[in-house]
């Protein structure tokens, strides 16, 4: 046989049905019974992310999330770790801009025990000073480590440069050294008390559960939890604007880590699906324009991609590629040319179909695990998306046509105002960049 074999008849797939309830105290409860599973995934998601912290305490939400797993009133850090891990449970707890989340995946028969520990951790955390001091130091050390990593350094500097001075999104959601250094355990306790409360929290349980038993377990552990959370503030996302090149000097680098982009979209943007499909076509899949050109044709990089980072307020749109130092200027030119091209003309129907078919066809694969299904429900809770969001998702993708990709690109991709940040060896790239006419060049130290 020499041609592509025909597919057989597809078997339909439906995102699992779930039950959505609410306790009297406001806690949202999302139950996804998956009777053929061995595992259960539990995720608590609260409106207690970086958007809910005082700007003067930037990073406190992330530290709070990390400090939660260091014990409860009854169990100190060592005892909490031993107790959970003896059940085969590793509790995770982290925060981003729009939420804080905590949870675990475990064998189904550990649900009750795990839920009891998770409830204790959230409702009566230990938050002691000794562990706080350790985690704060670890966070500061991690920033040191990140700044030695050219890719992470480029990410951080891109944010700092793309947003206007003082804009919260100009830093990492976990804070900067300047904001983390003065934080105290009192700040963490205050943040937790003010933000983590049943009326701004949802719990998702997906997997090997009996819904009524799971509901009873949630009621038993969280039913008498009281309080109200202050919720998130509104974040103003303004960009600095103007085509500029910022070289973060890292002498001896054999590659330049490129970051090119500008302000993107908020999660509620009506062009969300158009942007999703357009970004996939431009730089989201292996055969995307950026990767095809920079990797498969030119061999400049191991991979080039781009994406939006939609949040409650507009997050960045960014293309990125680590390219070998010698081709830095040409690689930037090629990336910018692709941003121009997607604005200049609509994609062919064949090119669009390939990407759309991928996004639609890969849908069931995203929900193979209980953790994947639980995670899928979090944005519904965080952004108030409709209950049928995932049931209508594939139709939304299929509705994106060539004209929509084109108009979305014209509105949301703006190479003229794209910021170009790279970490690399300034002595090797500076002159050529200055002569390129692609923008003003500023060289800044890495440290």
């Amino acid at each position, binding site marked *: *046989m*020499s041609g*592509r*074999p*025909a*597919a*057989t*008849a*597809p*078997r339909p*797939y439906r995102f699992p049905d779930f039950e959505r309830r609410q306790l009297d105290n406001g806690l949202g409860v999302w139950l996804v019974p998956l009777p053929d*599973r*061995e*595992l259960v995934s539990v995720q608590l998601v609260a409106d207690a992310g970086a958007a809910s912290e005082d700007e003067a305490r930037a990073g406190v939400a992330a530290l709070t999330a990390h400090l939660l797993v260091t014990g409860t009133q009854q169990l100190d*850090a*060592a005892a909490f*770790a*031993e107790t959970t*891990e*003896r059940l*085969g449970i*590793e509790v995770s707890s982290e925060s981003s801009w729009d939420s804080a989340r905590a949870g675990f995946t*475990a*064998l189904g028969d550990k649900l009750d025990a795990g839920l009891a520990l998770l409830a204790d951790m959230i409702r009566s955390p230990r938050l002691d000073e000794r*562990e706080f001091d350790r985690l704060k*130091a*670890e966070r500061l*050390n*991690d920033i*040191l*480590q990140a*700044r*030695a*990593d*050219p890719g992470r350094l480029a990410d951080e500097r891109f944010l700092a440069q793309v947003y206007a001075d003082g804009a919260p999104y100009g830093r990492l959601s976990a804070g900067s050294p300047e904001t983390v250094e003065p934080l105290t355990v009192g700040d963490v306790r205050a943040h937790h008390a003010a933000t983590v409360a049943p009326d701004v929290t949802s719990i998702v349980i997906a997997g090997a559960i009996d819904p009524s038993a799971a509901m009873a377990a949630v009621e038993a552990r969280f039913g008498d939890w009281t309080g109200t959370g202050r919720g998130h503030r509104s974040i103003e996302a303004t960009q600095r604007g103007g085509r500029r090149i910022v070289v973060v000097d*890292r002498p*001896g680098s*054999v*590659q330049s880590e490129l970051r090119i982009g500008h302000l993107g979209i908020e999660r509620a943007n009506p062009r969300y699906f158009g942007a999703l499909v357009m970004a996939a076509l431009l730089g989201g*899949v*292996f*055969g995307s324009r950026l990767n095809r050109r920079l990797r*498969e044709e030119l*061999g*400049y*990089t*191991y991979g080039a991609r781009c994406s939006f980072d939609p949040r409650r307020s507009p997050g960045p749109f960014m293309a990125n590629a*680590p*390219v*070998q130092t010698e081709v830095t200027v040409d690689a930037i030119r090629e990336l910018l040319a692709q941003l121009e091209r997607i604005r200049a003309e609509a994609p062919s129907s064949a090119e669009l179909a*390939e990407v759309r*078919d*991928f996004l*639609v*066809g*890969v*849908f*069931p*694969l995203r929900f*193979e695990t209980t953790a994947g299904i639980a995670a899928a429900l979090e944005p519904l809770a965080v952004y108030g998306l409709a209950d049928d969001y995932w049931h209508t998702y594939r139709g939304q993708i299929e509705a994106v046509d060539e004209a929509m990709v084109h108009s979305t690109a014209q509105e949301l991709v703006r190479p003229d105002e794209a910021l170009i940040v790279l970490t690399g060896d300034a002595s090797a790239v500076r002159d050529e960049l200055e002569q390129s006419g692609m923008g003003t060049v500023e060289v800044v130290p890495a440290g």
Partner: protein
Amino acid sequence: MPQVPIERHTLDNGLRVILSRDPRAPLVAVNLWYDVGSKHEKPGRTGFAHLFEHMMFQGSANVEKGAHFSLVQAAGGTLNASTWLDRTNYFETLPGHELELALWLEADRMASLLPAMTQEKLDNQRDVVKNERRWSVDNQPYGDWDERMQALVYPDDHPYHHPTIGSMEDLSAASLDDVGEFFATYYAPNNAVLTIAGDFETDAALELVKRHFAPIPRNADLPPPPDMTVDALIGRDVRETVPDQVPLPRVYLAHRSPPFGTDAADALDVAADILGAGRASRLYASLVREQRLAQDASVFVFPIVGGAAMFAAWVTARPGVTPEALEAATLAEIDRLTTEGPSDDDLERVRNLHAAHAAGALERISERADRLSMYACLFDEPERINTEVSRYAAVDASRVRSALAESVRADNRVTLTYVPAEAAT
């Protein structure tokens, strides 16, 4: 723990086929392990097995460059490949009704890669792989640790002495002739395992496998496996200090250890988890949480089968902590476990973590397929997938102690210390 179903077949050309049906989701995973990795590379051609893996995506007789990716993705599938010391694997996960697409693509490149090869494609992928090396090794803090470690743990002429990514010089030297020879030698049905897991009808799937793979001729002259023989112990305490662009010192330890799949290797897996898995692990509890010497700690065993594997660890120093102090504290914890052995609580903890992780990994049909291929390729025993948890749980305190005492000792240790470059001079 539910059993993974396994049905084994062997085609006349020697291709081993494993079918593992699970119709819960309308998805199917196709996974091929070729019994060739960087340990098979010739002198002067380090990195070639991996470069060759890239060439497998550059088209074949009936598939254009780039089409392998685009056809699978347009079908709603994901795909990739990887190369390591012992083997090279290729895999697709896609909607069940597109099973034949994956089989056709895999068979076409197994049967007829060479007509599609050109110098231009080789030069392009050589550049890509060199950029992969720059990105993952040369431009990365601590990025060459495994390369340095392998060179110190294994003798110069041992097949594990060099890293899978290879050297820039050897990548530059690779030619189209090398591609042809490597393909003819190793990419044969009798040097591969094909696993299909997920939603399919067994008879129909087997029929498709035969239709696409049975015509491919075997290689009657498969070379004998490389000689992996190596002394069980290094025989001395080996040390190297590396000044690098890093803010925090990091100490890597590695030891020759019994090969993956042996009882002693199982015991060292348990030891590694007691020391390094989770926030209740010995190293995290002692070095990170209590003594506050380390920023992080990690312990692991390389699952490789030739001659000797590696039992390794790394710990990153907090600012102000010397690598010497960190190393001493790490060795004190390892020695304490070796001398006193694990407690019942230690064993219960890691067994339950392991069982949960195993169940989590096997939720994904791609992982199930990969492990079936692995056990079939390395041990001719895919059934090992169903004894992973029981083998691990059978490790008791005395086995942990004796496995550590045999391998994790000063005369069998490489210590590699990264220090901030400015502090080194």
